């Protein structure tokens, strides 16, 4: 199967600090991939390099058969790469419906699909319904709870109609039932054909969601495989539990 996302020998340094060291990863379409690692292992840096927030000095990223190197973040979004942020970053001056409207206007519109005002309203309502926020469509982000904020992040990413969604710690700080809510959402999205990369510290969530698990430690990929196998890997155990 050809890869939807192919990362080859990717490296990123911040001065003398090596944040990513020759990472290679191939993710086929439809994958449910869990990306784990201790704090500072380079997970978010990898996401930032994939999404174009940071530019890698070495190596390459290919998405859907197209090289992404040097491409601005918004162009990558137009190609079908969406992300949610570790700390929710809503557009604070807009209500929820308008937050969803942005990717519809700028990403779906950039693909040459003209959406009428009515259709945009309809899609905003549908997406907010899917994440359970329909009743708050006219509310401002500051009125939301933590889990609602996370859901808004996901809904905004979904509005871009991505082929690949990267959920960066979308469940941090949530209760067990709230984690279940987000997981259900991600599974539903994956069932609709969207490839999902889940970055998470909540291991139960990662294990129940992922079909494949990648572990980063100190900017290096130390394991890649089925979740059960990866968790038995002595190197992964050492990384998480120490010697």
């Amino acid at each position, binding site marked *: 199967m050809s890869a939807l996302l192919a990362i080859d020998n990717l490296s990123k340094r911040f001065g003398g600090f090596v944040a990513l060291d020759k990472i290679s990863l191939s993710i086929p379409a439809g994958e449910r991939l869990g990306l784990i690692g201790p704090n500072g292992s380079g997970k978010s840096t990898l996401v930032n390099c994939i999404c174009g927030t940071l530019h890698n000095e070495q190596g390459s990223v290919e998405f859907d058969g197209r090289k992404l190197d040097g491409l*601005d973040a*918004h162009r990558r979004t137009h190609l079908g790469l969406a992300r949610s942020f570790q700390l929710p970053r809503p557009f604070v001056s807009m209500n929820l419906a308008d937050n969803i409207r942005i*990717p519809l206007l*700028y990403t779906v519109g950039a693909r040459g699909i003209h959406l009428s005002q009515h259709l945009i309203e309809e899609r905003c309502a549908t997406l907010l319904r899917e994440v359970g926020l329909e009743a708050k469509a006219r*509310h401002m982000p500051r009125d939301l709870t933590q889990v609602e904020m996370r859901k808004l992040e996901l809904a905004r990413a979904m509005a871009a109609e991505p082929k690949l969604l990267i959920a960066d710690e979308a469940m941090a700080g949530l209760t067990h039932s709230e984690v279940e809510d987000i997981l259900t959402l991600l599974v539903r999205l994956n069932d609709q054909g969207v490839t999902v990369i889940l970055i998470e510290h909540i291991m139960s969530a990662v294990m129940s969601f992922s079909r494949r698990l990648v572990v980063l430690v100190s900017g290096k990929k130390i394991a890649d495989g089925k979740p059960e196998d990866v968790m038995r890997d002595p190197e992964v155990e050492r990384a998480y539990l120490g010697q």
Partner: protein
Amino acid sequence: MRTPLFFLMWLGIAAVVFGLALSSGNDYVFFAGYVVLQYVVLSTAWNILGGYCGYVNFGSAAFFALGAYSTVAIYKFITENEFYRLPMPVLILIGGAVSGLVGFGMGYLTLRLRGAFFAIATLALAVVLQTLIVNWDFVGGSRGAYIVRPEEIAPIGPYIRYLFLCMLLLAVAAITIARLIEHSRLGYGFATIRDDELAAEAAGVPTLKLKLIATTISGALMGMAGAPFPYYIGYLQPASTFGLDYAVNSIAMPLIGGTTSWIGPLVGAILLGSLQQIATVTISSAVNLLIVGLLLVGFVIVAPNGIVGLVQTYLRRKPPEFVGRRHVETQSPETVP
């Protein structure tokens, strides 16, 4: 309300304002009104970049001066070569084109800077441009340049009335453009830049391109406001054209009126501009900046979102549907200069 209707409505209001000014029978009304209208255009232009996008421009005076000096350059060229005198609307368009071009260039060079760094870069631009003008003898250099204003223009009468009318129409055009942007796809894009540039890019918004559009439109409108100025003032010198008054007023007026909507700069400019004109005739023009400073301090403490923000806060007590879609109750420190 649709834009053409909005434009026609404001044209109607402008006609009433012009009629009232004419009926006063006092040309000082035109002199004072011109300054207020000039500030309406300047603050509306500033707000397109500063309010909508959250990029604070301290170089308003430079764009204003560029418009003014493009008129001076054309005036000198025409008088030296005995060419046909260009009508004011053409001078305004040329001033706008020159400033818009410089705005585009400034945007291209500085828009990877954010917050205070961007603001300082715009200030530096003003200093560089002032130095260039001071050393350009053709437009008078540091000595300044005299422009002989025609006494009358048919069928309006005294030339100041014509300048007032030009600025009135320019103000209508500026607020129509600002409102059109605010309610368009572009306006949504600008608001995402103000809120969170990283999230905007992730949502597919081409932030650099939008910022270039904002600097160009904002610069062009400021230049247009400056183009008729040499004919108004009669004697143009770099120290006053690049002066602090324009930079401070064009920031303070939107901040006092409210930056998230087209109406904020309009309210701020009318309020502050009128107060300054009253102070000029009753006390002294020297207190103008003091008035701005005091009001700015007062508003930052009492109503950080300006007059429009105060009204929106009042409306928020009603169901959310009645509230403007981009109301900000508390701005982040980055958006407040």
